[in-house]
């Protein structure tokens, strides 16, 4: 692959990049438009007043608060379960290991409607009322794999001799864990946790099945899409959601830079 890219190849790459990014830039632009009824382009003028209008909506804050609580809960569960799974899988061999691997990926490999409906049916059977807890259960299920991927990649690169050295020098297993293993895994756990947070914060499909009448921010936004009168507020919240989802990702990217590739495919459906 040493051939210099031709002009046409370069052009089509730039066109592709433009296709991917122009819609995101438009979201930013429309949050400031003075037009409140239609999606007129170019916007007739720019204003900051819709931010004030959006921030005055108490239902928006409630939805945001629920989303944050859910994302924190799901991330905490995913960190524990994903971390344990990674520790159990990293250097061990046992029958059925590939089945466990498949099981870990299944929640993001299957369409969201399948996961959502399956969880809805069993949570109902178990007599659990739809609410914050059921949303967290749903989100944790597909967040486990992002933590797992990040931690398992780090564990594979960690030489076992370091743990042996720690043990040889008289450290108890818990000390080895606290002073050798954990510092080594810290950034991988943090990156996996940030990805899990973003994944949970952004999720719509599984949530619509497990949320009952509760509204996370994406669910709230989805409802607003069908209310033409609320367009300016929708535009502002869309920008807000985009920023809140992107920031943890960029941070995670930083954390894993130069070590491993960021592990954990985005899951949307």
């Amino acid at each position: 692959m040493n051939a210099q890219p031709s002009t046409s190849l370069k052009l089509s790459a730039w066109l592709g990049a433009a296709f991917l990014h122009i819609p995101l830039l438009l979201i930013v632009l429309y949050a400031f438009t003075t037009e409140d009824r239609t999606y007129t382009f170019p916007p007739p003028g720019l204003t900051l007043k819709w931010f004030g209008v959006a921030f005055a909506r108490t239902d928006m804050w409630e939805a945001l608060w629920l989303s944050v609580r859910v994302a924190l809960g799901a991330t905490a569960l995913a960190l524990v379960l994903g971390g344990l799974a990674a520790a159990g899988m990293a250097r061990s061999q046992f029958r059925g290991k590939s089945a466990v691997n498949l099981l870990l990926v299944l929640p993001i490999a299957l369409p969201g409607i399948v996961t959502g409906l399956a969880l809805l049916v069993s949570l109902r059977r178990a007599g659990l009322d739809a609410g914050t807890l059921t949303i967290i259960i749903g989100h944790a299920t597909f967040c486990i794999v992002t933590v797992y991927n990040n931690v398992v990649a780090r564990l594979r690169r960690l030489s076992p001799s370091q743990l042996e050295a720690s043990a040889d020098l008289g450290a108890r297993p818990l000390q080895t864990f606290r002073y050798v293993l954990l510092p080594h895994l810290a950034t991988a756990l943090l990156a996996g946790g940030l990805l899990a947070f973003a994944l949970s914060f952004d999720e719509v499909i599984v949530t619509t099945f497990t949320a009952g009448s509760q509204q996370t921010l994406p669910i709230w936004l989805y409802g607003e899409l069908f209310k033409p009168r609320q367009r300016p507020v929708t535009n502002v919240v869309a920008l807000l959601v985009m920023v809140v989802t992107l920031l943890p990702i960029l941070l995670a990217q930083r954390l894993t830079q130069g070590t491993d590739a960021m592990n954990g495919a985005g899951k949307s459906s």
Partner: protein
Amino acid sequence: MTTQGRAVPQKAARPSFGKRYWPLLLLAAPLLWLGVLYLGSLLGLLGYSFYGVDDFTGQVVPQFTLSTFRQLVSTPSNIDVIARTTLMAAAVTLACAVIAFPLALYVARLTDPRKKALWVLLITLPLWASYLVRVYAWRLILAQEGVISWAAAKLHLTGVLDGLLSLPVIGGTSLANSYFGMFLVFVYVWLPYMILPIQAALERVPTSVTQASADLGARPAQTFWRITLPLALPGVAAGSIFTFSLTLGDYIIPGVVGAPGYFIGQMVYTQQGAAGNLPLAAAFSIVPIVIVGLYLAFVRRLGAFDAL
């Protein structure tokens, strides 16, 4: 897995970690969650699809019956939904492959690692910006008074746009209400999933192979069609698994943009909610899994699993 399986001596070298039950102890909690709660739920869902609904009371009858599946395949409108969704998934996959390939090729050929990292970030970033917001962005773009109409007017292409919209099936009253508009949104949302595996596959094509092709007198175009493309095909197949199955299962996009015809995801959602027919919803949710299963069997032959 099997090659690693022979690395047993490692265990002996690590006495503190060597206990046999150690990994299983660690795995207990995750396995309980995923293996019992999640897999159990999936099996429960499968079970539901073999239940029926009492015609008079509308209550679920928990007895084994194939009537739900019979109803699924014998109702012409259901078949329409399945065909519509599958065709859309195929069209989206094809378009994604065509758009993604040059981009992936460009990035794979970049030699400056910093530039390459920047491009990879450029491709993955939209993937991470909220899915719902990206779908919403297209409502702004496709609206009658939106960017596309504006650009078409500026470029004196309004006639072309109107011509496109007047086409049967893919057209509609406006881009936001047409299958073509919906197709654009699907392509946009899943495109990065196609670019990344193709790029990875292209990176694995050894330079020596393309050099040898050139040394043996092949023109660049010949090298591309006969060497690079066939070697990158597993990457295309791997990407297509994402674009195909994600389109099959989606129900947000058909709800936000496009013509009124239902898609599989919407059927599942409506049947479990408003219609209250959980067995039919369960049966419908099995459909994308079956189609993806068939598709996986097909792409496996193209070596997609080596490129994942």
